[in-house]
């Protein structure tokens, strides 16, 4: 399947510092169209018809989320853009913000119109502080040009915490507290930011909205597979000749991305979705990239045959243990214990009972962790145990 430019169509084409270049590329036509001739419900319906699902990794249907917030009682509502891209190996949102902040602003304004929110937030990770001026400049220009009448956009910076990419932790952070995940329900569409109905969408999700409004949901839904419509932007890094950002129609085989576009050689395994993602061995390289198979937020980290599987899993778990917010026990303690056991395997001192302990722990964490961090933390271990069992067995003392 081909590369396609929907999300990235303006990247490298417009000047991200000048709104006039965006207007020349049909910029803000979707917002004008929506305000002039579509009801908020009609905008939501187009998004539903498009089949657009969240691009931050969870894949929740965007239109249904918006409808939930729209239908929640109350006249104070919020829309948030999650630009706290912290997943290991992900940099697509940085690339998008660097090259086309205007489409994002238009997408967020459309979200505000659809949901009935007068206030939008962009939560930008602290590590991307160097993008703040560009983004704020784009917001200012959009405002001065009259596109944000009745809709304010406030950029809020993070302060260095991976878990704030999780939606409920992100809202805690905007409210000024520790970025700890919330218990759900209630869900954000009912009680989100400041306990008001709120939608929160990934940068890339919102980038799709103007095209969907302009060209229609049924145009959009023709791309992709039955349950994964549209395109996806991937961040490819690691043992590849051409790392970078690539946009593919959903359902394209992983091989196209890894072997053809990024020119990887001698691949052993690929981690898809970063630290909370899945690991697949090279003999499954024809797996389609889609929500029904494997996707995450689109981080694709490639490891060649010289890499040690246990080392990869251990480093992944160290990252998660460090970034766990600490609120719930299964995640806080579970990641820590996994690091300790994996450390033993790194030294070749694994115990026979360790595999069973890790498996039991994985099950508990997936079942009872409060948010996606702890629920997905065991994936790297479980996947490598399935596909690279020998690497574990050979590190057990006495084997």
């Amino acid at each position, binding site marked *: 399947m081909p590369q396609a430019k929907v999300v990235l169509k303006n990247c490298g084409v417009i000047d991200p510092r000048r709104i006039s270049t965006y207007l020349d590329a049909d910029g803000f036509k979707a917002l004008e169209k929506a305000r002039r001739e579509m009801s908020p419900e009609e905008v939501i319906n187009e998004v539903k018809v498009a089949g657009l699902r969240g691009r931050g990794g969870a894949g929740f249907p965007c239109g249904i989320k918006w409808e939930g917030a729209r239908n929640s009682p109350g006249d104070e509502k919020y829309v948030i853009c999650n630009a706290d891209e912290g997943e290991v190996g*992900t940099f697509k949102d940085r690339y998008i913000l660097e090259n086309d902040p205007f489409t994002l602003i238009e997408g967020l304004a459309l979200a505000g119109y659809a949901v009935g929110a007068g206030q939008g937030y962009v939560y930008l990770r602290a590590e991307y502080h*160097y993008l703040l001026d560009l983004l704020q400049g784009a917001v200012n220009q959009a405002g001065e040009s009259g596109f944000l009448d009745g809709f304010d956009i406030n950029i809020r910076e993070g*302060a260095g915490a991976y878990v704030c990419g999780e939606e409920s932790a992100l809202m805690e952070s905007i409210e000024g507290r520790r970025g700890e995940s919330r218990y759900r329900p209630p869900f954000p569409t009912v009680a989100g930011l400041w306990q008001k109905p709120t939608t929160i969408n990934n940068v890339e999700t919102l980038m799709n909205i103007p095209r969907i409004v302009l060209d229609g949901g049924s145009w959009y839904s023709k791309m992709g597979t039955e349950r994964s419509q549209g395109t996806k932007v991937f961040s490819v890094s690691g*043992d590849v000749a051409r*790392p970078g950002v690539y946009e593919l129609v959903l359902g394209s085989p992983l091989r196209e991305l890894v072997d053809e576009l990024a020119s990887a050689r001698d691949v052993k395994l690929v981690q898809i979705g*970063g630290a909370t993602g899945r690991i697949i061995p090279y003999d499954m390289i024809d797996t389609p990239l889609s929500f029904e198979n494997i996707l995450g937020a689109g981080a694709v980290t490639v*490891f060649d045959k010289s890499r040690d599987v246990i080392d990869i899993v251990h480093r992944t778990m160290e990252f998660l243990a460090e970034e766990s917010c600490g609120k719930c026990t299964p995640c806080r303690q579970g990641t820590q214990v996994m690091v300790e056991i994996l450390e033993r395997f790194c030294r070749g001192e694994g115990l026979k009972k360790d595999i069973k302990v890790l498996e039991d722990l994985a099950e508990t964490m997936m079942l009872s962790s409060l948010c996606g961090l702890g629920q997905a933390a065991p994936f790297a271990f479980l996947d490598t145990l399935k596909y690279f069992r020998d690497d574990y067995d050979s590190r057990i003392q006495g084997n």
Partner: protein
Amino acid sequence: MSKRVASRDKAPQNLLVALKEAQSRHGYLPHDLMREMAESLDVPVNDVYGVASFYSFLAIRPAGRNIIRICKSLPCYLKNSQIIIETVAREIGIGPGETTPDGRFSFELTNCIGLCDRAPAMLINNDAHVDLTPEKIKQILKNYE
């Protein structure tokens, strides 16, 4: 509605915003300052310390004038970030987690900073430095006094 939101945003009860402002004035968050802040915001000092110690870009100990953050996550690791870490340590004479005696640099290792396509990478203050090699380090550090 937006007016009400704006005022609440700027209101001192947003602890994270207040802490970031305080840090930009003082370079870090001294204990006395956190105590004062707790009093003036009428919140327990635990809450102030809790937020201050949660975020990696807030410092609860004195920090150097320049903060080096080298990425230690997998994509940079695959591109030999270890050599960059060792080179920086040798150049400034301290290890990760430390501050030079002259207060010029604090040295930290950080998790993924989203520059994996240009690995190995680091941040110094808010500047991104990419495609690092040991040879480049000396020249880059010269720009930070």
